[in-house]
């Protein structure tokens, strides 16, 4: 049993941008787990009635919570787009070194564009929000 193969340890890899993206995928995923807590808090406040919902809305509209919300949005855009890249890999495509490097750039560009568009839409559409 002790002769079973081990996957190579992290230290032996040359650090490249594809590796940074892989780590960022995990960090974004962990951060989104915290985002679920905020979503559930919002849902419970809605279920608890108008007064509770207004308290939650006031809290979620505070500048520091806005920073958190936008960070979750950024994390979501990245985790979604890079997650699709992982699904393509799992299907057996795009695994060559050059392809992986190109798709890494594509992921960053698409995720950033998606974040900016949704953030802009949010600011425009929710302008009436206190």
């Amino acid at each position, binding site marked *: 049993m002790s002769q079973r193969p081990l996957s190579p340890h992290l230290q032996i890899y040359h650090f490249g941008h594809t590796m940074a993206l892989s780590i960022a995928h995990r960090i974004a995923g962990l951060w989104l787990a915290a985002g679920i807590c905020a979503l559930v808090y919002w*849902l419970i406040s*809605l279920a608890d009635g108008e007064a509770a*919902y207004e308290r939650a809305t006031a809290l979620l*509209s505070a500048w520091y919570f806005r920073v958190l919300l936008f960070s979750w949005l950024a994390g979501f855009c990245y985790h979604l787009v890079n997650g699709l890249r992982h699904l393509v890999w799992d299907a057996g495509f795009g695994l060559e070194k050059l392809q992986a490097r190109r798709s890494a750039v594509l992921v960053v560009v698409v995720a950033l564009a998606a974040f900016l568009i*949704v953030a802009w839409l949010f600011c425009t559409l929710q302008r*009436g*929000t206190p």
Partner: protein
Amino acid sequence: MSLRSPLGAALGHGTAGEGVGHWWSQRISALALVPLMLWLLISLLRLSLADYAAVSIWMASGWNPVLLVLTVLVACWHSLLGVQVVIEDYVHAPALKIASLLVSSGAHVLLAAGGSYAILRVALRSAT
């Protein structure tokens, strides 16, 4: 001498001793979350989020509560699996690892149940 064939001993056991079920669950929940989360994001953008009545009506109408419960459940499931992998990769002390896994699983189940119950309360309240 064991009477089990080598294949019988190996089937269903990955390096974590649990086969590929975890891997598949993570991929399928990821795939399901793509349309669900896009739907949620677009719905939230279209809503006037400060308007308690408008949000309540939205959460009670048509398929919205069903899709929302599914989104919360699948998101919690996907998150549980993902956090589990991170803990298994980076926490090596057996006691701490098992404790972290238990806390993470418990927290995710609590979020899934709390979120679903809240959605149902809103949906059933407005329906009557």
